[in-house]
């Protein structure tokens, strides 16, 4: 049987990284959306 401390340590570390990766992808998606909107509004983006 896997030691509960060993399991908790590995599980929590991967949860921390998953949450951080999710936060990065959310921020990236939101900024890219804003960038697209702004480019569409500006004269240089209307070409």
């Amino acid at each position, binding site marked *: 049987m896997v030691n509960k401390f060993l399991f908790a*340590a590995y599980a929590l570390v991967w949860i921390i990284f998953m949450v951080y990766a999710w936060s990065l992808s959310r921020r990236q998606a939101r900024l890219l959306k804003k960038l697209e909107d702004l480019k569409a509004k500006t004269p240089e983006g209307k070409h």
Partner: protein
Amino acid sequence: MAKKFPIGAHLAITLAWIVISLYMIFLYAPQELTMGEVQRIFYIHFSLAMTALFAYGFVFVGSIGYLWKRSKATDDFAFACAEVGFVFCCGVLVTGPLWAKPVWGIWWTWDARLTSTFILWLLYIAYLMLRAYVTNPGRTESLSAVVGTLGFITSIVDYMAIRWWRTQHPQPVIGGGPSSGLDPRMWATVFVTWGAFLCLFFYLVRVRIGIARVRREVSRLRQQWA
């Protein structure tokens, strides 16, 4: 200009490296005699800790680069390393007590190593709060560089703490004198795991730098549009 290594390939290598390191941790490395299974936390704890310490070295390099050249690229690098370093430091503070409890019988003690790691974590928070709440261009970067330098000094104290003072934390396994050392298979596992975490660190830093660039472009277009 040097061609950049594709970020997708970087991610694929990181994931493959992590799988190899997990195989080595759980199936290749021998079981430690006194601590048993729980000693396997060491591989991830050590790798997270060393990467979090190195991260402050990179923050310092980026900060000095900014103060010297006033370049946005070096500041982006310092900021990204601080944010990702903070995530690694959180991992250290989670895995440490989970290893300490079954081995020492306590979750935490205020010895030199643990206290300096906690201060390092607080300095990471200070750095990130400074970035979030001081919005004066130029001043934010300069103040962050000062906190980054303080963090770098603390990271050296943190690394040396188990050499300078008697601590509850185990003595160093690398360069810790004649009684230190590991089984060769454990050494291999330590270095493969640390390599995987460094690879993950740089992948996350690259993504974070990409976000900083997009944010700057958004601000530029907003100013242009206003």
